[in-house]
């Protein structure tokens, strides 16, 4: 039997992997992929909760649709920003874009 805990564990691992990718990769596009992975991990845990819940509302399933949509929109905007940044800085390495350094 696959229990709820297993799904949650996987979801957590996904989140952690995604977060690690955000922290450790230098390429902006790869950072973005990590971000997407984090979102998907959240989706996974939502669906798992919804599946194993005993109410008939299936609210989790509904919310996942919203999240996927929003993620897609966010990716569009994010990539647009990255393209604009590339045009300005000619690089996708995040360390070279440290304009916020004090």
């Amino acid at each position: 039997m696959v229990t709820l805990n297993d799904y949650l564990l996987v979801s957590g691992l996904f989140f952690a992997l995604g977060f690690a990718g955000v922290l450790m990769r230098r390429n902006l596009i790869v950072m973005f992929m990590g971000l997407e992975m984090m979102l998907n991990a959240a989706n996974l845990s939502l669906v798992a909760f919804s599946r194993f819940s005993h109410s008939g509302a299936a609210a989790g399933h509904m919310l996942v649709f919203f999240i996927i949509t929003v993620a897609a929109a966010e990716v569009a905007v994010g990539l647009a920003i990255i393209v604009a940044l590339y045009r300005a800085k000619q690089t996708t390495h995040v360390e070279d874009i440290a304009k916020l350094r004090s």
Partner: protein
Amino acid sequence: MDLPWIVLFTPLVSAFLIGVFTKRLHNISAGISILAVLISLGASIGVFLQPDAAAGSLSLPWLSAGDFQVNIGLKIDQLSKAMMLIVTIVGTLVHLYSYAYMAGDEGKGRFFGGLSLFMFSMLGIVFADNFVMMFIFWELVGVSSFLLIGHWYYRNAPPAAANKAFLANRIGDFGFMFGILLIWVTTGSIHFSGIAENLGKLGAHSTLATVAALLIFCGAVGKSAQFPLHVWLPDAMEGPTPVSALIHAATMVAAGVYMLARVFFILEIAPDALTVIMWIGAITALLSALIATQQNDIKKVLAYSTLSQLGYMVMAIGLVAKDAAMFHLITHAFFKALLFLGSGAVIYACHHEQNIWKMGGLKKLPFTTLTFLIGTLALMGFPYLSGFFSKDAILIAAYHHSQPVFWIGLGAAFLTAFYMTRLFVVVFLGKERSHEAEKAHEVPVLMWLPLVLLAIPSAIAGYDFFIKHFLTLAPHEASKVPIIATAAAGLGIVAGGLLYWGRRSDPMYLEPLAKKFYFDEFYAFLIRNTQDLLARLSAFLDRWVIGLTVRLVSGGTWGAGFLLRCFQVGNLQGYALLFGAGVVALFYFVIFQ
């Protein structure tokens, strides 16, 4: 308005008018001042002739804080009447003398303003009926002295001398103030009458009484230039000679003795303090007499002589003979003022030459010589002049009270005769030793008349018919003391005459005496080193205590800023890491606490 108030406040009005309006108008200022002192003299004669009871104590409220009341009160009794007359008589003569002596001085108006201020302050001390009032006027007298010593302020020496006088006085006044506070706290009153009523609270022969008496005495040590605060009086000779006569011979320096006589009822219950007072007076008398024998400036000799005689007066207070002390104060006021004004005449005649070895042969000035001789003989205690009676009164008291002090007093008497003979012989007799001395001629009448007028009491003030109006003295007892004292004086005259007759320069040079026993050098050393020490201490405190605190604060702020700056990496991933770490910590605290 009552007469005593006129005596006290006329000089103040004069000082105010001169100070505010007529400082530049020299003769008008002089006129106002002289008029004021004459009015004061007339009023004081009037007060003197009034019986004590009628005058009693008059009072103006001055300060009132809760139930603490200080009045400007005038105490009119035998003591204050005597002192009042001395101050006004000598003051008037000095004012008249100054008109001639200071003629042509660019600060004449300022000078007379200072003289008037002094008259007011001194009379305030004389009339004071409570400690606070006395202290206020005590300080005022110090201020007047400061202004008058430093009259020629554009020269180097006078301001320094004025500073020295004021500072030495302040040191004494510090103790004086503590004494007043102690007495006030113990007896609950600052009025002399109130203190006398509550004297039991001080406790006879107690440590408290001794401490209070000694602290009060500190004021006299400063004002009357006793050892060890005697160093300011010789330097005060930088002031014009009339000032030296009035303030530093006859009146201000005597204020210490007057104060001790006034509060004698407090000193009486502290015999240990009286012993200390006696010894300090004796030491001062002997010390300054020794120094005087080697001084070559005519005013310095007289200054040390004043110190010596003040020592006698203080010694007399210590010997529980306050009437003898006041007697000597009165006679001293006359003959010392005479001597100083006479020396002023000599200086004036020799065109402001003060070195006695550049004088000589001045017996051709008849009035000056004769009056100076009378003053000298009175000072030495020549039989039947005024000083004879007063000095012997003190010596008799010493003989019965304390033999060592008697011998010290006798020694000082011998030395007094010695150095005064030296002074007289060198200045007036023999041949002229300089151009100025050759050209000298008698001084104007306004200068020799006060000399003559002072010579009369110098001669006769000792006799009963004169002095009984001022003091009540113990009746004369037959004693061999006057004979011993006269013998000592005679020995001094002979020694001085033999050693100095016909000399062109001093045959003797005793360096410690000539250098005033190195007191000034010692004090300078002391002050320099304490100041150095204080400066180093302050620097240390400033750098390491206060500075450390400030630097810790500033360093701490900087360090905190440095640490926080590490968070501002500007690196996006760094921020994300911190964000994640914060979330984890939050989870930990929410779930596990």
